[in-house]
């Protein structure tokens, strides 16, 4: 189905199942530990051996020699695989560094060997016996030091390296009120709870991998490419994924090494990345240095806005596209953005939840707060004065929906913003300095083709199959709701099967595009199935209704089960998009409100309240959508207050590479969180009239925390994370 004209009334608009806060259909499995994750598939293939990954101990250089003798002779060992004995390997399209290193080493903990043994304990012990002689080479690991040599590199996603409209330099120079400030965000890790894990089994030249992957088709493509075999020989299965956040978008070493290990050991092999290996072995969100310049008139209208960002990556890697939102969020005739990329020899930088916008908004939304203060304006009022209903670079191009002002106003009322004292450092509650902060939320709505197959059987059961994944987002449930709505059945009559490359290719999970696109693909397949049902019954399709498990036309009505008959009916289709995302700018909007308390003596920071107001098209399931938003708010709180991969600039690796060193929010860090969804449908986006929320929730929340800390203490911190050492010597005098 080609979606090239705005949606009109369709069966989804009945909202009998879609749009309701339904419990997750996979909930009882998850709550009882019976949902099977990749490493746990004892059921799929017998005789599984265990693989243990050895990571490089240097960041850059080469392996002079590798001695496998003792490892190979250790008890239970079945095979030791290295890049040298694995046969010729290609590199995946989506991988920057090779997944299997040696003799050349591209980053610390790059996988260099896999030890396969009868048991996990044997494989782990034998892996310690692999002896490697390295010849280290000098690498670049310090973004600030490499910044001046950074080059202009066009990113594969996220807009051009340079953009400009009007005369930024002239307008900024002339502006009566100006801000020119530099911000930094550190390297961050996805740190999903389930490590990257795979079980691989060969049947002749055919490979099946039970894995944990957000993008089944990308993974299948890259596994075939890396192994230099036909894509039709590779099957990936990933029904449950213990978190991804972008870290499982790609084929990674666990899957490739399991396949190579299984080939060498001639039996199925399972591999999980040990937690301490994950952070340097896989991808991370790259650190940024961002310079923001804003020039405004005295009445608070932005005349010039410029945003530059520097980030690093391995050669062939992308910049962190931290300037993207600044092209669209606020009005202003004169504007520029620029991204520069430095060569760094740390592990590959790549997408993490809201790539670009998450760190970009962390900087931009502090800058807006600073600018409002210079103008003596309330930060909400300043944002409202600079709202735009059109793409500021292309004023003939409207936003399909843009309710940023509504989000800010509703949030302001609900949060009690009017009680905020705009003078920083003046509100006390016992030993606590209290502050409120606000930030806009913004994330683009991305469209991607997505397919599905739908079957109807003689019990009236509708089965949906698509290679779409559920990484905790609620895909199972919203896809079931979509099929139930389209076919006029209750939710218990729908079976959803996901995450298998044998199913039609979907959009996959990423970029908050999963919900809208995958359900649109299911919508398209259901439209075809409805036509097939009507055709079989000789009904005239336009006036056919699918209600309560029946097909009705005029005064005739037939049960779906009967219509399907013994052989059943099936249909497959995909949603594809025309030019509506070029004619219209499609984005999601929100407002974050945060109350913090900062200990007046120790600078300990506590979050007291958090509220997000979101305008993101139709909300397909308010319960799971709310969870997406609070989860993103939590990750954003981590980014604001604690998350930082610390770089060892001499040896070139992330030092705090486990969950004790890389701190993420825990229960005690997070207060009750409120989420409000504005009543919105966006017929420009898709037949579902939905957009995404999973990343909107992280965009801006870090800055709202930072702005609240400023309001509480009067200390403006521009370098994340905001830890107490950055406040301690600048706190207000104790009375």
């Amino acid at each position, binding site marked *: 189905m080609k979606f090239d004209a705005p949606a009109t009334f369709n069966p989804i608009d009945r909202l009998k199942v879609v749009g309701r806060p339904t*419990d*997750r259909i996979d*909930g*009882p*499995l*998850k*709550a*009882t*530990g*019976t949902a099977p*994750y990749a*490493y*746990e598939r*004892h059921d799929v293939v017998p005789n599984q051996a265990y693989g243990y990954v050895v990571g490089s101990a240097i960041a850059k250089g080469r392996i002079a020699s590798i001695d496998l003798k003792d490892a190979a002779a250790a008890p239970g060992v079945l095979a030791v695989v290295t890049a040298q004995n694995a046969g010729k390997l290609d590199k995946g399209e989506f991988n920057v560094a090779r997944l299997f290193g040696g003799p050349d080493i591209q980053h610390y903990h790059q996988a260099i060997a896999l030890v396969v043994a009868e*048991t*996990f*304990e*044997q494989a782990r*012990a034998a892996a310690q016996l692999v002896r490697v002689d390295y010849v280290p080479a000098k690498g670049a690991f310090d973004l600030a030091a490499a910044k001046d040599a950074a080059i202009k590199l066009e990113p594969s996603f996220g807009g051009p390296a340079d953009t400009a409209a009007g005369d930024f330099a002239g307008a900024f120079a002339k502006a009566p009120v100006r801000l020119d400030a530099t911000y930094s965000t550190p390297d961050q890790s*996805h*740190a*999903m*709870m*389930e*490590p990257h894990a795979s079980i691989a089994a060969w049947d002749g030249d055919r490979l099946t991998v039970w894995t944990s992957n957000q993008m089944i088709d990308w993974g299948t493509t890259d596994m075939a490419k890396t192994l230099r075999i036909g894509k039709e020989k590779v099957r990936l299965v990933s029904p*449950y994924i*213990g*978190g*991804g*956040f972008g870290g499982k978008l790609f084929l990674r070493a666990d899957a490739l090494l399991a396949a190579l290990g299984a080939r060498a050991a001639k039996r199925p092999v399972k591999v999980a990345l*040990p*937690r*301490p290996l994950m952070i340097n072995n896989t991808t991370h969100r790259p650190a940024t240095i961002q310079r923001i310049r804003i020039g405004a008139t005295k009445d608070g209208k932005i005349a010039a806005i410029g945003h530059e960002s520097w980030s690093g990556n391995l050669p062939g890697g992308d910049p962190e596209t931290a300037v993207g939102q600044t092209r669209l969020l606020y009005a202003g005739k004169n504007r520029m953005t620029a991204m520069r990329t430095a060569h760094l020899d740390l592990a590959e930088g790549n997408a993490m939840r809201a790539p670009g916008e998450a760190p970009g908004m962390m900087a931009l939304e502090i800058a807006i707060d600073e600018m409002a203060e210079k103008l003596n304006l309330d930060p909400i009022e300043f944002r409202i004065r600079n709202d735009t209903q059109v793409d500021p670079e292309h004023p003939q191009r409207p936003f399909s929906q843009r309710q940023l002002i509504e989000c800010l106003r509703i949030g302001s009322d609900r949060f009690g913003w009017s009680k905020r004292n705009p003078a920083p450092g003046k509100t006390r509650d016992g030993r606590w300095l209290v502050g409120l902060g606000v930030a806009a939320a913004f994330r683009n709505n991305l469209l991607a083709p997505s397919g599905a197959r739908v079957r109807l059987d003689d019990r009236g059961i509708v089965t949906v199959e698509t290679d779409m994944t559920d*990484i*905790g*987002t*609620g895909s199972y449930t919203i896809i079931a709701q979509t099929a139930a709505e389209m076919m006029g059945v209750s939710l218990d009559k729908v079976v959803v099967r996901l995450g298998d490359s044998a199913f039609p290719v979907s959009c996959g999970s990423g970029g908050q595009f999963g919900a809208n696109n995958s359900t649109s693909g299911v919508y398209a397949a259901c439209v075809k199935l409805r036509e097939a049902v009507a055709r079989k019954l000789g009904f005239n399709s336009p006036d056919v209704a699918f209600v309560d498990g029946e097909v009705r036309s005029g005064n005739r009505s037939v049960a779906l089960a009967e219509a399907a008959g013994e052989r059943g009916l099936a249909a497959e289709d995909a949603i594809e998009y025309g030019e509506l995302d070029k004619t219209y700018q499609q984005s999601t909007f929100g407002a974050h409100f945060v109350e913090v308390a900062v200990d007046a003596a120790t600078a300990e920071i506590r979050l007291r309240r958090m509220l997000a107001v979101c305008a993101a098209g139709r909300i397909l399931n308010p*319960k*799971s959508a*709310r*969870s*997406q938003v*609070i*989860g*993103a*708010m*939590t*990750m954003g709180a981590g980014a604001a207050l604690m998350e930082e991969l610390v770089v060892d600039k001499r040896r070139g690796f992330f030092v705090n590479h*486990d*969950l*004790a060193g890389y701190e*993420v*929010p*825990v*229960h*005690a860090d*997070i*207060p*009750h*969180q409120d989420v409000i969804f504005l009543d919105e449908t966006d017929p420009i986006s898709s037949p579902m009239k939905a957009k995404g929320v999973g990343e909107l929730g992280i965009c801006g929340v870090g800055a709202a925390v930072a702005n609240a800390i400023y309001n509480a203490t009067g200390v403006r911190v521009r370098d994340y994370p905001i830890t107490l050492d950055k406040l301690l010597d600048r706190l207000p005098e104790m009375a």
Partner: protein
Amino acid sequence: MAKVSFVVNGEARTLDLDTRTTLLDALREHLHLTGTKKGCDHGQCGACTVMVDGRRINSCLTLAVMHEGDDITTIEGLGTPQKLHPMQAAFVKHDGYQCGYCTPGQICSAVAALDEIKAGIPSHVSADLTAPPQLTAIELRERMSGNICRCGAYSNILDAIAEVAGRTS
């Protein structure tokens, strides 16, 4: 290798194990009770939380052979999809999870944490170490802080636990 016998979810089990095998791997790899999750294998995340003789522990930080004669309860011992434990049902109702990987550990921890409060065991945030601890949000958050949820379902998990606590107290 060593022989170890313990009771898991009410059933007597005997295993012949490599002495290096953690309780976690004994459950997951030998008994195929994969509801208990391996998130870090280093006692940093709480995904492997089980109850041993009524007390919650990180099963990755203890060797299986140390548990001769112990009574072990895992997530599978609390309830089934058809017959959920009240805490499991509350997690479903409050959407106290997303990806589901930390969930069994959160649920085991939550059940044990309520028992600890009932037994009068104080925590880091208990104002008075000798008075019975209160069922407050701050007490629950503190006691649950060894169980990381990277999806960030904390606010909902707390609602789920509070509901069960209210019902049983």
